[in-house]
């Protein structure tokens, strides 16, 4: 037995040097050897991570071996991003253990040998490609006269992964198209001499078809060299075609791990909490007769995932949901409405409730009353002169109605997040807008407040207002009359009343795969 081990180790070594012995060229044989013999490269045990009141990871346990491609799938808020941040060493976990390469605590620069290609935000736009590579991989580039080596490494790696890319190391990232930036980002992550685990977070979201193929070819080559790769993607078809094993995450935990060869896309979205719905039910269902009687207040032309023209229609008194995986174009629909793009039809008065209350919601040095009345101020006064009595009564009405703790004169920053959100919602509803746009406004708000605000939305809709509501939380969508599920800026399906369930939304979110099968 020891002799066998030694031989295997020798093979592994020679493999890492790039020479693949003839007997071991078959990838499966190689992987079996690795997994059977070595202890896993990545070992996560009961990892728990909480951000304030939300539990992002509720006890994740998983193993990733060297020489395998490990897929991670899950819907919004399943904890994928948090898990990746933990694995790359950006975040520390609250309890449990993470061991990568035998190291249990990340150094200042993360776990050694772990590199991650981010979906966005990790390139400095004002720097050239070569400078970005140097910034990120300076440990492996000489400190003096680094321009040449950095440029050569960048060019070589780009050629290796994306032949025919057309990116020069001297190009400024700011002037590259999105797809090229993503190529640079992926190459950046792979330029490390001690690479043992590569994490790819939605790498193909902005890449074109041939670049996607090139990337996955490279991933397979890395696997053959004995590296581990973790691939996070919404594209189940890609996951199944390139991964060896797939973990399904839900509610901050890994609910199941599958061998990629033995599952179908359907199995995966069942595991994520989806349900299989026939295509007929999902797309193109006709609005019922009672709906058509009401006047239309919002119309947004869209395309279905199949490419057919359709539109998002909201009638007076309706609550319309925009659901699906975060970042699939829901906010762009709201933007088009709010900016009154020429192609949309929308009623006269609009109000907008932002989701990011710190950045675009509250006026931090004002009190509750001023924050609440800012939108409707011109309507309350006369000839530009404010009417203090009217303002006070309006504020009193809403403070009372939504039970905003602290009252009208409390400083807005002294309020809890939930109460701040109440003020922002009240601001929109206190105006005379007949269409209200909600941009995922209830993230991080406590359950009790949410329940009150759902009630408010429903009662205001009954009074004849139209609500267009984007939410990243599927369970919120059940408060809508109808919900459109978006996928890559297109409509994957429309759900009515009781049809709007977590399961239906999840299965429609992955409509791309269904479309391909059909």
């Amino acid at each position, binding site marked *: 037995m020891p002799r066998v081990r030694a031989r295997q180790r020798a093979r592994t070594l020679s493999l890492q040097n790039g020479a693949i012995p003839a007997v071991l060229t078959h990838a499966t044989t190689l992987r079996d050897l690795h997994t059977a013999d070595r202890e896993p490269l990545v070992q996560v045990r009961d990892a728990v991570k909480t951000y304030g009141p939300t539990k992002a990871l509720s006890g994740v346990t998983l193993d990733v071996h060297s020489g395998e491609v490990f897929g991670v799938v899950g819907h919004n808020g399943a904890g994928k991003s948090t898990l990746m941040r933990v694995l790359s060493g950006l975040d520390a976990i609250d309890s449990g253990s993470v061991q990568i390469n035998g190291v249990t605590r990340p150094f200042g620069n993360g776990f050694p040998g772990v590199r991650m290609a981010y979906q966005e935000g990790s390139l*400095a736009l*004002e*720097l*050239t490609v070569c400078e970005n590579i*140097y*910034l990120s991989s300076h440990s492996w580039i000489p400190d003096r006269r680094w321009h040449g080596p950095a440029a050569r490494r960048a060019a070589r790696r780009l*050629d290796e992964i994306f032949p025919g890319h057309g990116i020069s*190391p001297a*190009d*400024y990232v700011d002037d590259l198209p999105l797809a090229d930036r993503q190529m640079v980002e992926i190459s950046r992550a792979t330029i490390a001499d001690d690479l043992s685990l590569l994490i790819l977070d939605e790498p193909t979201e902005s890449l074109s078809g041939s670049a996607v193929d090139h990337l996955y070819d490279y991933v397979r080559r890395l696997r053959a060299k004995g590296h581990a790769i973790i691939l996070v993607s919404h594209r189940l078809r890609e996951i199944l075609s390139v991964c060896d094993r797939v973990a399904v995450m839900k509610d901050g935990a890994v609910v199941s791990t599958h061998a990629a060869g033995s599952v179908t896309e359907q199995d995966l979205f069942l595991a994520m909490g989806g349900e299989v719905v026939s295509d007929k039910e999902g797309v193109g269902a006709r609005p019922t007769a009672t709906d058509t009687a009401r006047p239309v207040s919002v119309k947004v032309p869209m395309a279905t995932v199949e490419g057919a023209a359709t539109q998002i229609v909201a009638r007076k008194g309706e609550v319309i949901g925009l659901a699906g995986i975060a970042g699939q174009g829901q906010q762009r629909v709201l933007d088009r409405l709010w900016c009154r793009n020429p192609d949309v039809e929308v009623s006269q008065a609009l109000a907008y409730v932002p989701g990011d209350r710190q950045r675009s919601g509250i006026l931090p040095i004002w009190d509750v009353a001023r924050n609440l009345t800012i939108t409707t101020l011109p309507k309350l006064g006369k000839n530009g002169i404010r009417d203090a009595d009217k303002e006070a009564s309006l504020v009193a009405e809403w403070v009372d109605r939504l039970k905003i703790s602290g009252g009208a004169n409390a400083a807005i920053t002294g309020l809890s997040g939930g109460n701040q959100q109440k003020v922002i919602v009240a601001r929109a509803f206190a105006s005379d807008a007949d269409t209200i746009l909600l941009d995922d406004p209830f993230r991080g708000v406590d359950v009790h407040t949410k329940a009150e605000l759902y009630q408010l939305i429903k009662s205001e809709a009954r009074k004849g207002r139209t609500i267009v509501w984007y939410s990243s939380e599927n369970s919120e969508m059940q408060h809508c009359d109808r919900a459109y599920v978006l996928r890559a800026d297109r409509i994957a399906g429309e759900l009515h009343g009781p049809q709007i369930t977590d399961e239906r939304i999840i299965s429609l979110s992955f409509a791309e795969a269904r479309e391909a099968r059909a």
Partner: protein
Amino acid sequence: MNTAILQQAQLTWPRGLGRRVLPGCLTLVAMVLILIVCGMIQPRIWSQNGLTLIMSPIVALAIASMAQMVMMSIGDIDLGIGFFVGMVTTIVATLLRDTPVLGVLALAGAVLAYALLGALVQLRAVPSLIATLGASFVWLGLGLFVLPVPGGMAPDWLFAYAFWKPPLSIPAPLVTMVAATALTWFVTRRTGLGVRFRSLGSNPVALTRSGSSLVVTRMLAYAMVGVLGVLAGITLTAEIGGGDVNAVPGYTLTTVAAVILGGGMFTGGRAVAWGTLAGAITLGLLTVLLTLLSLSSNLQPAVQGFIVIAVLAGRLVVERMSR
């Protein structure tokens, strides 16, 4: 295949480079035009002495502009550089002349103070505008403490520098300015430290993910601003012969204008040393041009302001059209 790629990279103009060097080139053209006009009105400008005469008041401005350029490359703005340079002149004209050791220590302390200011901006999230504005009053107070009224005397070696005539009839101020610019260019564009500076201005997240410390990077950038500020103060002392904390409060905004003319941005990330040099010389020569045209030099700030607004507006239009 590698060499082919590199050759191709050298042959084609890198994307985005033009957009970044064009403003500085235009400013350079403006500078040459102003020099030609000045020379046509007063031909004696075109001599070593003449050029030295019109350039020497610009040296300190050019170096202070380098300081401002480093500050703006990390996305900050220094509102205290004018009084800082003034304070340095008071130290140079007194301490550095009388007790050189103490003088050097005081100047080193000033640089250290700048580095600490950088730490304050990073750690306490104080806007750089506020921090440097506050610091400017400290510089003013310290300067008044050292020299309540303009006075003192530059050290002898500085006088020697002021009367230095380089060979080949090159004007001495030009040598100093080019040396300071080359140094700034080298640090901000060729070294890894410069990459970190610009990355801090362009995308701090990228810098964090690369494992570098934001605090250390910002402190080093501020220290470099301090060093350049001290150099500007020393050259200014040579120019005016003594110390005066109120010598150049106008530098604060003129240096910002010079950086903008050179192609810098308020949002950070761009380090344009040579463009900034052209910008500083252009702004300095405006005074000369106005004098030669027999216009009041009091008009200069207004002309400067107009030029800066025109340049920013023009650049905005060009960027819109090119997108």
